[in-house]
């Protein structure tokens, strides 16, 4: 059985990340076979401590490496399946999108921005007419006489 180790600098939640994989190395399961969270034994020279991903063709899955233990001439590598790489097509489907970096609607309230700092804008409307000011000589009193 063969495994390829490599690196990937993209976020783990990115779909169909680009792996930079090396050559095929033989491995043996460490204990029972687990295709979801495999633990495998390889020669210590097959895997670098900087490797972060691997691909096991026999399991037809891509994995994120979660641990590497060196034990003399061998290394024990643990991983967990990278579903975003292995099943990328499952993400490119029709879904109900609640939030997105694209195609959003700015007029929908965003609860993540609930802490809004208020400000008050005060403007006098001055482009209309007003009643004039009153001076001491203004005729501003009305007297009703019967």
């Amino acid at each position, binding site marked *: 059985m063969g495994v390829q180790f490599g690196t990937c600098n993209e976020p783990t*939640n*990115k*779909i*169909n990340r680009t792996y930079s994989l090396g050559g095929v190395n033989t491995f043996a399961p460490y204990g029972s076979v687990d295709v*979801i969270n495999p633990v495998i034994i390889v020669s210590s020279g097959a895997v670098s401590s900087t490797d972060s991903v691997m691909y096991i063709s026999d399991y037809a899955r891509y994995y994120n490496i979660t641990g590497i233990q060196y034990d003399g001439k061998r290394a024990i590598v643990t991983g967990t*399946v990278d*579903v*975003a790489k292995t*099943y990328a*097509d*499952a*993400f*490119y*489907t*029709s*879904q*109900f*999108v*609640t*939030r*997105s*970096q*694209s*195609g*959003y*609607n*700015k007029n*929908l*309230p*965003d609860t993540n*921005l609930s*802490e*809004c*700092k*208020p*400000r*008050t*804008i*005060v*403007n*006098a*409307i*001055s*482009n*209309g*007419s*007003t*009643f*004039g*000011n009153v001076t001491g*000589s*203004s*005729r*501003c*009193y*009305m*007297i*009703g*006489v*019967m």
Partner: protein
Amino acid sequence: MSRVSATYTSGSGQFNVFASQSNVECTLSPTLSTLFSGGISDFDNSICLNFCTNNDRVNTSYRYSGYTENNCNISWDDVSGHDRFDFYWADNVPQDTVSFIGTVLLASTENRTTNFPNGLFSLKSYLNGYGSHDAWDNLRFVLDVGGNGFNDIYAVFSGSDGGASNYTATDHYTTSDCAIKYCPNLMTRDITTIYANSNYINIRPYIVFMTNDEIYLGSITSLHPWACFFYYNGSYQIENFNDFKANINKSTGADKTFTGAFGSDDAPYLDFIGKMDIPTEKTQAPLSSSTAYTISYKRYSSSSAYRDALWCLHKSLCDYNWNMIGLKWVRTEEFTSAETHTKMKLPYMDDFCSIDCESWVTGLTQIKQSDSKNVDMSFSHLPNINPAGKDQQDKYDQIGITLNGAGNSFCHWYGVTSSEMYSLLSAFYSASVPTGLNPLDHIIGVIQAPFDISAYCSGTGGTAIKIGTWDTGVTGFMLGNQGSNSFVNMGSYAIPRYHSNFMDYAPYTTISLYVPYCGTIDLPPSLFVGHTVSVQLMYDIFAGDCTAMIMRDGSYYTSIAGNFTSTVAISAENMGAIKQAIVNGCMGVIGGAVTGIGGFASGNVAVGIGGTAGMIGSFAKSTEEINGIAPTMRGVAGGRSMFYKPNKPIIYINTPVNKITDGYINTHGLPVMETKTLSAGNGFTVVDNPVVTGNMTQAERTAIVNMFKTGIIL
């Protein structure tokens, strides 16, 4: 009413220009077939009807033009020694976007004497009923709207009125040129069709005629018409800008296209933006000011004089509720060396306001503060701008307001100064009082207004104030009945979209409006953000009652009732009542003196003659109010305390300062709430209740579901 009308009969190819008076020349107008050299069925281009006067006392009558650049001025140049006007509707304007509905004409002739040769009245005469028209001496802008019939044009012009209305073809009165040009409505489609289709760029030409003094383009002796537009408040979203850009760029030869901007008072100098260089991602006016427009215009250089056709982009141009606030040209650039000034001036229409324009729309005498007397407020002549069945809010003329104030009281009302009032008081306690007469028993009330009421008094010499037959020896000015039902436009305010997102609306943004003498009203942001609120105050000088009409984009929203007078104590008992009213007000017992015309709210009004500082009021919540679109009113109007409050409307807008940064969107996204097909490149995305299919273990399926919920990067 004198006016020239242009009618078009769909499919018949007939375009008739006529005037309502029998002796005018325009009855000789040609049909449309003579205006166009070819077929007219498609209306691929506009037509321009030129009406001209000049001082050669020759029958120039009207000049008409066809649809091409060459023959648009077909015989205009033949009028030797006279300026010409012309306007073209650009050939490349998409046909299905052209609508001249509600065409507005502006003509500026400054104070030059001019007249229309066909014997129509001048606007000045018309507006002033052939009486004194000093107030119009500085009228520089004439406006006409085909807003009702869409094919109408009032023959309006400013300057000397000439005094008569029966000019003959050769009896020209004018000393300078003036013209009015009209591009009639060529579209017969339902306006709602145009309006509802956001893919249209609705383009409306407005034409401004300017005298030499106002135009600094090309030849200084040329008069250039400018298709321009009113300053619109509201949303400035530009739809399909790229499409428009593409059409503009179809121009060939040396013609140039420009893009500029209009600004308002608070941003009067928005610079020229550049030749169609607005970033395509801009879906709003590319300037920070909320009161900016982008416009584009095309300069035709293929003729002897430069001509510039200018039009604007605006989403809501076909709205019935267009609200004309003002117009200010900001700046143009890239003019040639022929120009004598670098800055073009368009009329600065300080005098324009929504009510004024609306009054002109229908020929109603312009209402100004100083001219608020003798105004026909019946509104019976206002057009049915909003036909039945249209999903538009009614204007205030359509909501059945009864404008019939309480001006006729069964007594005499005198306007006096404070010194005259005290003289009267002295007379009451003088020896001249007839025996047995208590003058105070005859005083109905003494009311103080916050402004000089001389304009509402009749006569010039004053009238002796008499108690019965006893002459008090004090002279006052009797208030005339014309004082009732006055009207003042208190201005308007374009409420911008500060954020262009949900924060522009409640609960993040709240808006309240203080109206002098009436109190404060909350305005629902969902209705007013991106729109213009205006205040029209109707008042009854006798009673002091006033009702502020709160308008949204020129349409009625609600009203607030108030009272701007204060009762003056005339006895100890009376003073006690006034004090009690003041105490009540301070204790917050008084609710709102509120009226809801049109059914938004119910309440009491009633601050009558001599009314004190408010009445206890209450108002029930209507369905609209529960839904958050009905007005919420608070405050109270009336009383002398109102004298010390601002006499202008004040708008308060509470809105957050938060801004959504690009980084936030990249890591959190913004709400979508739609079902979409995801694909690479969409970026950060969160999915609710994802559906995951395919051959995989349940653990893997669960992992994918969790990733959808927490966010993936596509």
